[in-house]
């Protein structure tokens, strides 16, 4: 069909596989910062690992902008809620970078209940030549001091220091699923299953509740919040998605409590595809505004959809991620895979969208050419600097040599978390406890 030839345009130049994440820790979130210089990952053990892109250097042409570990720190620890007698998991659900305002980098990381603001600073100089203490820091014998000297800053090995600057606790009764920094760079929101709170980055002892969908009687509960995000440019707008597949765009100028949406985006159910699992597969697992701010990208179990903010009735584009699973929904319900929450991502120019799937496959869809490709993130099938080979899942009928049949897909190897560099064709793929970073060296004129 020409899929292979076109896929080469989206293929990536080389693979660098970072083995920094230990076997025990499943990666639970991946996020580039606003320049793409830094890449943060969070894991089930509450750790955050930050990678930094090495500047391209003529001396080492092979290490063209590769990512190396910059800092590792323990963000969250397991906690015990004494009032409810429940353990709070330390797993990092989301990381969001703050826009950089000075030499330091700051990020928000959250587990189910508590959000923390971390500041990452570099120290590459130290003062030497104190008058009152010697090189080891011991006080000098004053009789030996005969003249005054001015301490000078001397270069030292780079030290990256991380410190928790704020802890935003006790804001959520239910499990936090999203955080999003506002474009005003002063506030951010956190969303749990039933409520969304607005925080000021400098104030930790209170937050404003801006969405509350908890019914007066819990017996009337039929829908939960699954994801939310601020608009990239309009600081008063945000969107949240629900387990019933709807999106609500809210305007904070309209009211203090944004229970009433400004716009409701919902696609009517397709009667020909109706089943007992219709609602589960329509549940939106991720929502992302495009960089332009004009579109939204949503991921549900079988598709990714592009929505135009100006059209509420239906998405403008729908892409099938793995439609061959539609006939297997019963088994996937049985083994709980149908509840997996996949994320989605835009590329820098909003022309390509990406999402993960099973068998360590991930998919990319070019919105302009309408072509798509399936790639695999695994050590076995990729060597460093190899070009990724497109994969195909066959559903019966003609089978090519390297095709995988639907029945031999490994549902335990799933790619839930992916991220795309804000400007370049660099993607980060989390496959369970391994992080893959792919860079496209071949083609940048595609975009």
């Amino acid at each position, binding site marked *: 069909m020409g899929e292979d030839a076109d896929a080469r345009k989206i293929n990536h130049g080389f693979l660098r596989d970072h083995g920094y994440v230990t076997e025990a820790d499943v990666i639970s979130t991946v996020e580039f910062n606003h320049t793409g210089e830094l890449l943060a990952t969070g894991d089930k053990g509450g750790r955050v690992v930050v990678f930094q892109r090495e500047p391209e250097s003529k001396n080492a042409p092979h290490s063209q902008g590769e990512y190396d570990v910059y800092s590792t720190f323990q963000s969250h620890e397991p906690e015990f809620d004494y009032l409810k007698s429940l353990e709070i998991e330390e797993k990092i659900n989301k990381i969001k970078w703050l826009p950089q305002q000075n030499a330091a980098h700051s990020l928000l990381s959250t587990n189910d209940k508590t959000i923390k603001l971390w500041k990452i600073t570099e120290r590459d100089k130290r003062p030497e030549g104190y008058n009152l203490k010697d090189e080891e820091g011991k006080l000098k014998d004053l009789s030996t001091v005969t003249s005054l000297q001015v301490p000078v800053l001397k270069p030292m090995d780079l030290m990256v220091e991380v410190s928790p600057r704020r802890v935003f606790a*006790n804001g959520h009764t239910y499990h936090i699923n999203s955080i999003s920094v506002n474009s005003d760079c002063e506030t951010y929101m956190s969303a749990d299953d039933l409520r969304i709170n607005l925080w000021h980055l400098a104030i930790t002892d209170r937050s404003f509740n801006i969405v509350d969908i908890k019914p007066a009687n*819990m*017996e009337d509960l039929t829908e939960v919040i699954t994801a939310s995000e601020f608009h990239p440019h309009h600081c008063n707008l945000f969107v949240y998605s629900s387990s019933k597949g709807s999106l609500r765009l809210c305007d904070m100028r309209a009211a203090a409590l944004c229970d009433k949406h400004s716009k409701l985006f919902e696609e009517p159910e397709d009667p020909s595809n109706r089943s007992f699992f219709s609602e589960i597969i329509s549940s939106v697992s991720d929502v992302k505004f495009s960089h332009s701010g004009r579109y939204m990208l949503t991921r549900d179990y079988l598709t990714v959809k592009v929505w135009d903010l100006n059209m509420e009735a239906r998405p403008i584009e729908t892409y099938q991620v793995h439609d061959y699973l539609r006939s297997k929904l019963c088994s996937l319900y049985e083994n709980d895979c149908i509840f997996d929450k996949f994320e989605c991502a835009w590329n820098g120019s909003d022309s390509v969208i990406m999402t993960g799937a099973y068998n360590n496959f991930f998919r990319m869809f070019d919105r302009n050419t309408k072509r798509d490709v399936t790639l695999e993130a695994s050590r076995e099938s990729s060597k460093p600097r190899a070009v990724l080979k497109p994969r195909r899942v066959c559903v019966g009928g003609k089978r090519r040599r390297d095709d995988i049949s639907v029945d031999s897909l490994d549902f335990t190897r799933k790619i839930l978390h992916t991220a795309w560099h804000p400007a370049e064709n660099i993607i980060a793929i989390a496959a369970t406890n391994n992080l893959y970073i792919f860079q496209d060296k071949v083609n940048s004129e595609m975009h």
Partner: protein
Amino acid sequence: MLSKGLKRKREEEEEQQEEEALAVDTWWLDSDHPAVAPAPPAVASSSLFDLSVLKLHHSLRQSEPDLRHLVLVVNTLRRIQASMVPTAVLPPVPSLPAAPGMADNLLASSDAALSASMASLLEDLSHIEGLSQAPQPLAEEGPQGRPIGGPPPSLGSLDLLDPATGCLLDDGLEGLFEDIDTSMYDSDLWAPASEGLKPGPEGGPGEDAPELKETELDYLMDVLVGTQALERPPGPGR
């Protein structure tokens, strides 16, 4: 066998109603199979309804249920139940192990009864998620035998230190009580510690038989919230 006949009939109905082809289900004919799977994957293949009920049960047994998972399963169960109600009512078979017996009973029960039982499950959930005014019963209800810290009756104590910052939850107290849900104590659906689906010496079909003659609602509560039963009955209101 009666159960075989029942099973075949339900299979035919499901094939008519569902687009997905279900695998043939014979697990409850297998004497080795436990009445309740500890987790859904242990059930090789099952009718959708039973599977959903098991999932619901499993979800509620978690110390902190995943609300999204729970809501989706409950909604799916409602859909399934709604599609089954118009079909012929099958006679209940009390002598069967609890799970299939419960399924038969649910088929025979009214839509309202099931909805109410689902509603009660979610009430129970709000109790789990929210805070109780009386720490004592809450402490007793500790999930799955996890050792309970035993919060003191006085809520002004040091146990309310915020683990993150070490500060007293002064402002947090107001927010904490916001979610108190006392409807659990107002509800009269709670039965004293029930056998429900618990396998073990005290849970036998024979003992459940008198319970079956009570209101269907009570029985449903016993069965569906069996392992969540309080160690002792709640203080006020019951």
